[in-house]
């Protein structure tokens, strides 16, 4: 019996729950302006989520997936990317999308049931939200391969949930990324739950970071409620990938403080006590405390930020609510590059029906 291979998984975190630096920050990682930008992005995300839930509750938005408690993952990931990189999000990365220039009104349109919400004015190459869990992982490999084929120094970043790590297509994508040493980073947004299925029932693997061992490349675990750590670890992975160092897997440990979506009632399957406990690890509060302790944040700034986020989100809501639905025929407009003649009757039927139909609530 000969030992022929050894693999290890490391965990990275800098801030403790109180925002104190438990480990030395990497050079440059403590820059106050940058940290304030991260904090602002987290608060904006939280404000957006709260508003979206309120809209849903009052019948003005469809089912919505809040990222409450997970903002540091989305924001940290996006902050680690360059504009020319491509994000392939799942459905709970609005924090990353907003950072990258997806407009709040676009997110509202999407969740409000309008395809135009995925026609981002900016971030033109970013992928839309991916609902079928894990199915965007192969796309990320394809995008990364496209970069490599064109010789571009760009990276594809694919974010997925802990539940998604059980999907075969995610494994297949990681495996292929390994074979081709593609510039792609997979980030597992491990919020401990896949609807009602806890992380422990999803896999017997001690960490999700080790999933990449099967694909022949490294995985690292990061404190996903420490945005400094997330940004740092993901940036390292992204820059290594950009430099030709191949793919990486980052598991970000966080917690879903809210329901799975507005259609879910988490009290059916998990203890409130667990949730209360996890509130102590709130990533936004943690960074705020850190900045405040350094004298880089105060109540005045907090109030200004709150007001600013409110204003921006309210403006987006107003804009969203004022946008009339597409005409019915829109469902044919982008079905093919050019609508086949064989479908013109159907399109005409649909158009006529639209003009006749009485408006329905937009959900």
């Amino acid at each position, binding site marked *: 019996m000969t030992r022929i291979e050894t693999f290890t998984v490391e965990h990275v975190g800098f801030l403790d729950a109180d925002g104190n630096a438990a480990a030395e920050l990497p050079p440059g990682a403590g820059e106050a302006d940058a940290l304030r930008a991260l904090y602002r992005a987290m608060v904006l995300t939280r404000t957006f989520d709260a508003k979206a839930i309120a809209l849903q509750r009052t019948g003005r938005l*469809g*089912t919505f997936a809040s990222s409450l408690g997970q903002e540091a993952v989305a924001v940290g990931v996006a902050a680690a990317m360059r504009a020319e990189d491509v994000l392939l999000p799942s459905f709970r990365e609005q924090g990353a999308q907003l950072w990258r220039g997806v407009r709040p009104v676009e997110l509202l349109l*999407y*969740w*409000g*049931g*309008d*395809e135009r919400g995925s026609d981002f004015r900016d971030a033109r190459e970013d992928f839309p*939200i991916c*609902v*079928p*869990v*894990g199915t965007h992982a192969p796309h990320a490999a394809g995008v990364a391969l496209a970069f490599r084929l064109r010789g571009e120094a760009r990276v594809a970043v694919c974010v997925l949930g802990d*539940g*998604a790590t*059980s*999907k*075969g*297509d995610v494994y297949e994508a990681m495996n292929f990324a390994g074979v081709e040493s593609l510039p792609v980073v997979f980030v597992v947004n491990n919020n401990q739950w*896949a*609807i*009602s*299925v806890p992380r422990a*029932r*999803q*896999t017997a693997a001690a960490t999700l970071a080790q999933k990449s061992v099967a694909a022949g490349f490294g995985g690292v675990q990061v404190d996903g409620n420490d945005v400094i750590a997330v940004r740092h670890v993901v940036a390292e992975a992204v820059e290594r990938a950009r430099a030709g160092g191949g793919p990486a897997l980052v598991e970000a440990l966080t917690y879903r403080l809210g329901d799975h979506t507005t*259609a*879910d009632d988490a009290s*059916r*399957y998990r203890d409130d006590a667990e949730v209360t406990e996890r509130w102590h690890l709130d990533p936004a509060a943690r960074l705020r405390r850190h900045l405040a302790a350094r004298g880089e944040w105060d109540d005045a700034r907090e109030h200004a930020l709150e007001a600013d986020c409110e204003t921006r989100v309210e403006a987006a809501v107003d804009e969203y609510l004022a946008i009339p*639905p*597409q005409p*019915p025929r*829109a*469902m*044919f407009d982008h*079905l093919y590059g050019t609508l086949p003649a064989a*479908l013109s009757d*159907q*399109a005409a*039927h*649909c158009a006529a*029906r*639209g003009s*006749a*139909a009485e408006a*329905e609530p*937009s*959900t």
Partner: protein
Amino acid sequence: MSGINLVEAVRTALARALADDETVLVLGEDVAKDGGVFRATDGLHARFGGRRVFDTPLSEALFAGLAVGLSAQGFRPVAEFQFMGFLYPAIDQLANHASRLRNRTRGRLSCPMVVRAPYGGGIHAPEHHSESFESMLAHIPGLRVVIPSSPRRAYGLLLAAIRDPDPVVFLEPKRIYRARREEVADDGAAAPLDRCFVLRDGADLTLVAWGASVADALAAADALAGEGVEATVVDVATLKPLDEDTLLASVARTGRCVIVHEAPLTAGFGAEIAARLVDRGLTSLLAPVRRVAGYDTVMPLPRLEHCYMPGGPEILAACRDVLEYR
């Protein structure tokens, strides 16, 4: 209002099957503690325990194949797909294995398993949550494809599906999960898996539908009755194997037929029914067979969903066309 709705009927049938036969298992995503996202399995985990009712990881191909292995060993797994749009990864297991194991082994091994999935649109659900592709599954030899349209039929057909010695795909029209209550005797009586149900009798027109569209067809028939037109309404219920005789007999009488389904028109199951009618029932046809179906488009997001779904006006328009045809 007394009685139970369709999703409760599903639950009642599952509970009955679990109680009657210890080889019956319920599995899928969020079927245990959460009771399924539509609550179809609510309470079953508490009552029958985690051995019989359990959550799988988020792996649709896995749990379809798991059901193949379990059923080859004599269990009767009932696997819930959370939404039909997430059943695509399981088609490989259904087409290459579940539907064939008996045939491949000349009966040595078989797959008495059920695949359940809520399907269809009309509830303003998120992207990928409103699909109907029953015709794709109905094309696979060796499968049965069953779709209830009422609480009572859901109960009886699901029990039949679970007791059937072969794999059954059981699609639940979620638009009518809670639409209507009716008294359903929990008597363990299965409904036949090879028969269409004639829900309303009329000599002027045959309306054919399944799932949630049955209610639309019945409503259209009511409206027509107000105009003095009497329509037969047939709930196909079991798409595969298809009870062609009942359909032919009805159209032999009425000479006019409208088929309704939510799925896109092209290669939808309505085509199969129309094809059977023009093959064996041509002489009785007094008018074209019309299909009122979804467009050949991607199901739009909720804001335009109501412009995709074939509904009352579309059905009535087709009926009038067909009735006026000379």
